[in-house]
């Protein structure tokens, strides 16, 4: 009972810490945006707009306050779920109405790409982990192949697929698929699959995961308690799996930011209608409320993921709460 209570307290403390970090991070983001040498208004107001009209527009968009009070006002409003309204991207729409669905797709894409990557890494280390020779032969080339930035993988992949579709389908008078040629907007799922592939294959993610999983697996296999479990004739699978879970979860949480970085450009390449596209497009149009909103979502996801990992770890690992956090 007391463990549950301690767990709850620890979880609350972590959550409070996470919230504090979120406030700090949003402040950094807000200040960054407000430090613009030219105001957003100049970028969107017509040429020759008289100063008084500009001032009115500034007030309308809440840019007339100094950054600190502006931030406080923003913070108070955003706590009630009001992140302001889009200026240019989708004028008048509440920011979260624009940002949430787009970011949801991005999160789903990155999270599932990461899961697939994790599964592949576990499978690979189970298959290759035992034989050091084979592993060494494969590591070099695999290292080079997966170190490519995901967007380079995506560009090359798109070119190769376009070429293949053209040669095998179009020139033989088959109907090309809905998503062809690759950089077009389509409702089909394939661009998401392609993007997922690029995310898994790029940014050194797989190798990074693979190395971490393998090291963890090797350490566990050589752990004394596993030897003890073996020596008493019990199956080690359950023990290994349980002890692998937490490092994998932490690794997952730690790598999500990397994937969320890569996804921004990969989305752009496959013209996916996600958070990365929204970020770039809104930045290009100087739609600052949307830019802040989407950046906050990215940041909150990173903080939330770490928080979740911490809490799950605390629940699963009896050692965690004992140390008092």
């Amino acid at each position, binding site marked *: 009972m007391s463990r549950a209570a301690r767990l709850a307290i620890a979880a609350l403390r972590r959550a409070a810490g996470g919230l504090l970090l979120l406030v700090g991070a949003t402040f950094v983001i807000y200040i960054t945006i407000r430090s613009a040498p030219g105001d957003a208004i100049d970028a969107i107001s017509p040429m020759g707009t008289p100063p008084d009209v500009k001032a009115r527009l500034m007030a309308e968009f809440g840019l007339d306050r100094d950054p600190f009070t502006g931030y406080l006002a923003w913070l108070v409003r955003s706590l009630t779920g009001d992140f302001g309204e889009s200026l240019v991207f989708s004028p008048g729409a509440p920011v979260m109405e624009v940002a949430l669905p787009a970011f949801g797709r991005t999160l789903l894409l990155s999270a599932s790409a990461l899961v697939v990557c994790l599964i592949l890494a576990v499978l690979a280390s189970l298959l290759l982990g*035992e*034989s*050091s020779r084979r592993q060494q032969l494969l590591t070099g080339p695999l290292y080079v192949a997966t170190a490519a930035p995901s967007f380079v993988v995506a560009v090359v992949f798109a070119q190769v697929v376009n070429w293949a579709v053209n040669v095998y389908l179009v020139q033989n008078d088959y109907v090309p698929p809905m998503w062809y040629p690759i950089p077009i907007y389509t409702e089909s799922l394939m661009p998401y699959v392609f993007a997922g592939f690029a995310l898994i294959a790029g940014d050194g993610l797989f190798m990074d995961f693979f190395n971490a999983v393998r090291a963890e697996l090797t350490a566990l296999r*050589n*752990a*004394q*308690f596993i*030897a*003890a*479990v*073996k*020596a*008493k*004739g*019990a199956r080690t699978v359950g*023990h290994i799996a*349980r*002890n692998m879970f937490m490092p994998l979860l932490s690794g997952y949480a730690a790598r999500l930011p990397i994937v969320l970085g890569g996804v921004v450009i990969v989305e752009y390449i496959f013209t996916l209608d996600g958070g990365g596209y929204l970020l770039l497009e809104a930045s290009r149009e100087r739609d600052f409320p949307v830019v802040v909103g989407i950046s906050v979502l990215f940041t909150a996801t990173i903080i939330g993921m770490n928080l979740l990992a911490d809490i799950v770890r605390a629940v*699963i*690992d*009896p*050692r965690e709460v*004992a140390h008092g956090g």
Partner: protein
Amino acid sequence: MSAELPLLSVQDLVIEFDTRQGRRRVVDQVSFDLAPGEVLGILGESGSGKTMTTMAVLGLVAGEPGVMGGSIKLLDGEQQVDLLSDLDGVLSRKGDRVVKNGRKWRRTVHKRMQPLWGRMMTAVFQNPRHSLDPLMTVGAQVEESIELALPDLAADAVAAKAVDWLDRVQMNQPQRVHGSYPHELSGGMCQRAMIAVALARRPKLLIADEPTTGLDTTVRAEIVELFRALLEEERRSMMYISHDIREVLYLADRVIVMKGGKVVETETADNLRLGRGTRADYTAMLLSAADLPTGAAA
């Protein structure tokens, strides 16, 4: 005793490892027998190969290439099983070097060991904190052993028996310990728990590999006393490995002394204790360091 077949018979065991300085032989032609119901002590300083020898018996040598020759025979019922026989495809000669197919080796030995682990023998290691699964309660780990030993037992009986085992290893408040996690226990308690886990499996041979290393002096004494009490309560076959001559002499019937990967002496504990017979130099040195009679030099 000599008419009976030994429970464990190790002949000419060789273990080698690759290091940066080349291949090193850490166990060199080691041979010994262990009769049923006998407590065999293995004595030696660190690096003498005593732990590697026991790991070889357990089939758990980690590192390349590992076991390179010899035989390890276990008495399973009426039958002697040689863990290392028929490994022709595994070991081959290349010029003057013996080459080993490590993967095949592990697979073969693992297959042979699988039915023997636990039922024939199990082990208690040094560093008790690292010997228990950190994510399971102590009780669950004892229960896992009991379920393996007595697969038909009902769940509540298993739980009761687990508490009983924790009581038998002289744990205070066995009920509480049953629900505790390893990190909540002291080193000595962890080792008691580990002993309970090992014994609950009812092995024919218990291997205790430096079970007191890393514990405080008073706790060490308690653990040794626990072993003594358990041995007195029920006659067991046991290998007790230690670098502490007093512990070995206190518990063992017979002792082998190892140094530099070789057996330098095999003698009964009584003879060693009382200084009877001739002694190897190294043994004599160990005895004198412990203020025990050294007997005649070899």
